[in-house]
């Protein structure tokens, strides 16, 4: 009996003491997660995580997680989630539940995005480790924000994932979407921070008393004066942010169908896009627009807009007129003013398509870019962002800027693109006589 007790005590001690290596790894760990594979689909793959410092309350120098947290002052406070992992005979950790799987996957992408940033010398542009909020509950928010979404929360510098309720690839597992959200950090740093400081945006989300909405097309069909310019700049900036984020997501993940993988088009939205059409070619980001355009008034406006612009980047006049139309209609219908954000998504999706098509071959056969090529495009995009910021900040009172001009500030940095593609670009940016749309490689088609 004594031996039995001694033996039991010894083994109990062994199983009591949790191996340090199992909680605090001293080096890289291998985990199995869903990742976008070379065959163009998501599959479970073994990947290596380099910076994890806690395998229980999972986190490391690339990301820290919160689960259903609250906000106190400027801080996010709440539960730091634990993960449940198994460890196979090869020493590879695998998730034992769906939340653990999402946490591992987001961490993997945080590391990879950091590597991507490092290759572009912008690692220090954003803060690491990233703050990741999972299962965020946002009472009072619209249905599009409460579920099936992810967003960057600049006030808290956090990437937020709300519960996913659809039956496709969860957003928290979708590398493209995570890359898209990461780009918002970059856009915030390189473009929006200074513009916001200068008070150039009208960020009022509800129609405040006294806010002027120029009703009717007479006063709105112009890009002159000061009425509505702040709102226009806000939505134009949002459009570029969303559109270029889609481009970034593609550059990072190599996945051209990342939106479609997670978000299905809602009923009645097929007037905006053909859901069977690969988003990469025709409608990158378009699903987002379609999701937001739930109200008939909104969908009709976009349908009208589509028939007019035929895939082009619309003019300042056109975009502004639509903003005014929608916000006036929203006000009359008792809808929030932010209904017009759908327009920004729609323009953004067109920006994404145009940039991507320009880079990968115009209207012709799309080519697949290697990582080096994608870095090259991303570098050009970053330079373009600094120029966009400069251009917006330099606007004089009453001066407006054409959407195509800002897109051209990005594309003109892509001098490595074949000159033939400039024709495609010109067809989408319009007869642009104000700025050069192509880089030096496209001088033949340069309008300036």
């Amino acid at each position, binding site marked *: 009996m004594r031996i039995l007790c001694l033996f039991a005590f010894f083994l*109990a001690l062994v199983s009591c003491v949790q191996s340090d290596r199992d909680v605090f790894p001293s080096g890289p760990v291998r985990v199995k997660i869903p990742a976008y594979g070379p065959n163009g689909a998501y599959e479970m793959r073994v990947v290596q995580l380099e910076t994890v410092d806690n395998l229980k309350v999972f986190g490391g120098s690339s990301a820290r997680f919160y689960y259903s947290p609250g906000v106190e002052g400027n801080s996010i406070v709440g539960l730091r989630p634990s993960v449940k992992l198994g460890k196979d005979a090869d020493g590879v950790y695998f998730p034992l539940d769906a939340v653990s799987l999402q946490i591992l996957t987001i961490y993997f992408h945080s590391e990879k995005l950091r590597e991507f940033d490092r290759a572009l010398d912008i690692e220090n542009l954003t803060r690491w480790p990233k703050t990741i909020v999972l299962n965020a509950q946002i009472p009072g928010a619209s249905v599009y924000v409460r579920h099936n979404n992810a967003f960057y929360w600049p006030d808290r510098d956090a990437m937020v994932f709300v519960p996913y309720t659809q039956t496709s690839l969860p957003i928290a597992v979708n590398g493209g979407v995570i890359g898209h959200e990461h780009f918002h950090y970059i856009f915030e740093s390189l473009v929006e921070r200074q513009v916001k400081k200068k008070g150039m945006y009208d960020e009022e989300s509800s129609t405040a008393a006294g806010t002027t909405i120029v009703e009717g097309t007479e006063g709105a069909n112009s890009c002159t004066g000061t009425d509505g310019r702040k709102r226009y700049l806000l939505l134009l900036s949002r459009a570029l942010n969303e559109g270029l984020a889609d481009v970034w997501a593609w550059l990072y993940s190599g996945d051209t169908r990342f939106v479609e993988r997670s978000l299905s088009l809602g009923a009645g939205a097929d007037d905006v896009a053909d859901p069977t059409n690969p988003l990469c070619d025709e409608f990158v980001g378009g699903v987002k627009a379609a999701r937001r355009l739930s109200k008939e008034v909104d969908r009709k406006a976009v349908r009208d807009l589509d028939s007019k612009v035929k895939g082009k980047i619309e003019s300042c006049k056109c975009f502004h007129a639509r903003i005014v139309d929608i916000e006036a209609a929203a006000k009359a219908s008792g809808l929030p003013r932010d209904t017009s954000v759908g327009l920004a998504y729609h323009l953004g999706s067109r920006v994404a398509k145009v940039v991507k098509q320009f880079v990968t071959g115009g209207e012709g056969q799309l080519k697949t870019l290697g990582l080096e090529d994608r870095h090259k495009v991303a570098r050009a995009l970053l330079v373009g962002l600094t120029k966009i910021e400069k251009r917006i900040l330099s606007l004089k009172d009453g001066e407006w800027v054409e959407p195509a001009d800002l897109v051209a500030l990005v594309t003109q940095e892509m001098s490595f693109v074949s000159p033939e593609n400039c024709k495609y670009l010109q067809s989408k940016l319009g007869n642009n006589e104000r700025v050069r749309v192509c880089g030096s490689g496209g001088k033949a088609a340069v309008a300036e």
Partner: protein
Amino acid sequence: MKKLFFLVVFLLSGSVFAQKAVRFQSVIARPEAKPRDNFKAIFYLSQDFRFERNENMGYSPHRLMSLGFGLRYLGRYVGFIEGGSFNESTGVGNVQVNRKFETVNFSGALMTQAWGIAPYVGLGLGVARDTADITVDGADSNNRSNWEPISHFFGGVRFFPRTTAWVSLEGKFVVGPRIDPNPAPGFLVRLGLEL
């Protein structure tokens, strides 16, 4: 290292059983002893409610069904071996994780009995492993962990409504490197026969 660990476990277990066997031999050598009365075989089915962390970061009981058998010696010492498992399924979107937890335990308890009520305390050692079948976007992946050591401490009361049938209520703490929380509290109900 693990193999050595299990070898030590095996040998020590063997030595304990050997010691018991020698005592048993000495008991049956004496004509006045009634070894059949000293040893009783135990068979039981148990339902364990173990409070593990769930995917919402709260705690909920996992229902682990076990089957076990063992011996009760001199009415006071109880030893048994049991095997059990539970399944857990979680998912989001087209991601599905089906987990199976399996465990095999060897336990010993000290028991005292009066008027059909037998309180007891004990501890046990064993191994556990997890299997996870993960489906993502239609692609399957099967994963299985190694057997890893766990231990448990328990105390409870066994009721004998009949001389051969019993039911016990037990509180239990399970300890192991991948048990969350560690230790994990739980309680269980056993229905058994003592022959």
